[in-house]
């Protein structure tokens, strides 16, 4: 399919040259396509970048969920499995990924670079699903109102992981593995039933007794 060829051709170009092609014309010429073929699918390279990131997320999920133990994993392990697989996917395209991350992540911590918008949609959908499973299994505490913010909270975690990955200088990104492990453990300690829930329950009880 032409669309995939353009995508792959673009990715190869960035991996090989370290920068995006100077113009759409240059890329299509290289691929032996008329320039307007590109515009049939994409408005510009930014849109293409966004789609590539969304593809990484989809691919990571597809690979991770094929792991034979996937069904036995709880929500925490599923998230970990996804992160580790995503890293593997990114490592395969590391020049593209690192370049994009370094270009866009340093600006405002916490703000999502536009290039990751596509990935974000994929990720939040995935997280919403595993959180629902987690609530059913009791791994995650049910907290009306607050829990709607969880997908955004986990998205911030993914941003942290990506930022850590972009700055990691250890062999085979081993520090990033450790960072993921610890970040996920912490986040699941937070969303699991903990002091917070007992405190809320207690306060609610006091307020009700007042009447």
């Amino acid at each position: 399919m032409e669309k995939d060829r353009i995508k792959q051709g673009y990715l190869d170009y960035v991996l090989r040259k370290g920068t995006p092609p100077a113009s759409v014309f240059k890329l299509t010429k290289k691929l032996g396509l008329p320039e307007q073929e590109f515009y049939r699918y994409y408005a510009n390279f930014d849109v293409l970048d966004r789609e590539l990131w969304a593809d990484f997320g989809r691919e990571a999920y597809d690979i991770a969920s094929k792991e034979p133990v996937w069904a036995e994993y709880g929500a925490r392990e599923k998230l970990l499995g996804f992160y580790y697989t995503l890293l593997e996917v990114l490592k395969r395209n590391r020049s593209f990924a690192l370049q994009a991350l370094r270009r866009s992540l340093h600006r405002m911590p916490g703000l999502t670079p536009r290039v990751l918008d596509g990935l974000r949609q994929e990720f939040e959908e995935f997280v919403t699903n595993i959180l629902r499973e987690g609530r059913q299994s009791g791994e995650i505490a049910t907290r009306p109102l607050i829990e709607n913010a969880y997908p955004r909270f986990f998205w911030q975690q993914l941003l942290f992981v990506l930022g850590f990955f972009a700055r990691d200088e250890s062999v085979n990104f081993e520090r990033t593995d450790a960072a993921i492990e610890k970040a996920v453990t912490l986040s699941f300690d937070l969303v699991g039933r903990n002091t917070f829930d007992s405190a809320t329950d207690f306060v609610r009880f006091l307020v009700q007794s007042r009447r």
Partner: protein
Amino acid sequence: MADSAENTPLNSLPTTKVARAARFAKTGLNVGANYVKHYAKRAVGADSSTADLHQANAAELYGALSEMKGSVLKVAQMLAMEKNILPTAYAEQFAQAQYQTPPLSGPLVVKAFRDAFGKSPFEVFDTFDLNARQAASIGQVHRAEKDGRTLAVKVQYPGVADSIRSDIRLVKPIALRVLGLDEATVRPYMQEVETRLIEETDYALELRRGQQIAAACASLANLQFPAYYPELSAQRILTMDWLPGQHLKEFLATNPSQEVRNQLGQALWDFYMFQLNTLLQVHADPHPGNFLLQSDNGGTVGVLDFGCVKEIPADVHDLFTALLAPETLADETRLTALLTEAGVVKPQDPEAQRTFYVRTMQASLELVGRPFRQPTFDFGDPGYLQSLYALGDDLMQQPELRQQREPRGSEHFIYLNRTYVGLYALLTELRAFVRTA
């Protein structure tokens, strides 16, 4: 890897660089505070229980600091002076992981296998339990089966080598301050410790050494070594047989008979003497977690974990042996000469100081070397323990030793001392009667 550990999954423990920094900072404070309390109580004549101090310090001192100040005097310090002799608390502390980290999650273990073999552990083994059975010092142990054999699979935490390096950078200034040492004089000792610790992260090396030492010790009685499987091992994964048996503490709780304890003690003694004197290469980490005991065949010791192996240079071995020889003890000139060679006594030391060091060493060597001067030795003898404690108390009062501000002696002695301390600790806990000649 004891059977009893089977059903207890690991608990979470904190560690990041920041968390470790905080822990070490606390260590420095705690140890300092423990000693202040101890001396303060002593100063007013109260009977400050050495067990208290010991308990309080064991984790901090041994976990983080004790190896930093190596010297022959360390024999005295470790075996007597600090009363850490045969320290129950020390043994218990050290039996736990030195680099405590939360257990690796299932996905990370799977990833470690994918990195190493391109396959998940479920493809590599017939069965594989994703829940770790036990913490190893820098990893965790999983149980697996393949071709009808039960295997122990050690998986190392990611980035351990890096964190060891940064641990050392963190602990160094604190250790120097607590012990009042100067960086330049400690450098060789630090170097020695760092080398050993980094070696411990190399599972390929551990595998080679485990095979070598097991082969060399095959003729020794009542010892059991796991077979290692190179084709199932990698840089961060080590596969070996799952040995039966219990760790010292659980084993002693089963009230083994004196005969069994003697045979176990003898096996350990023979194993160590053979390594020290014949192989010149020693399993330098004799903490209880590395041995599995069982009473089958009158007592068998399973030896695990060849991560920390000290190769002993021939001249160091000669010197160490000469120091422990009975003739040396009686002959003060010879002892002085040997201590000078070992760097404990220096030619520029004032006469009084030299005499003091020689006297001190003579006293500790008399005790430490006592098992060697008799054909048989009873490590369960309470009299021996008491005289070691007494010597410790005595040395503790010596202002000269408390003020000693530089480490002395060869850096090779650090791990030799640690080996002896560990071995004596094991044997006394076993209360074993051993043929030592």
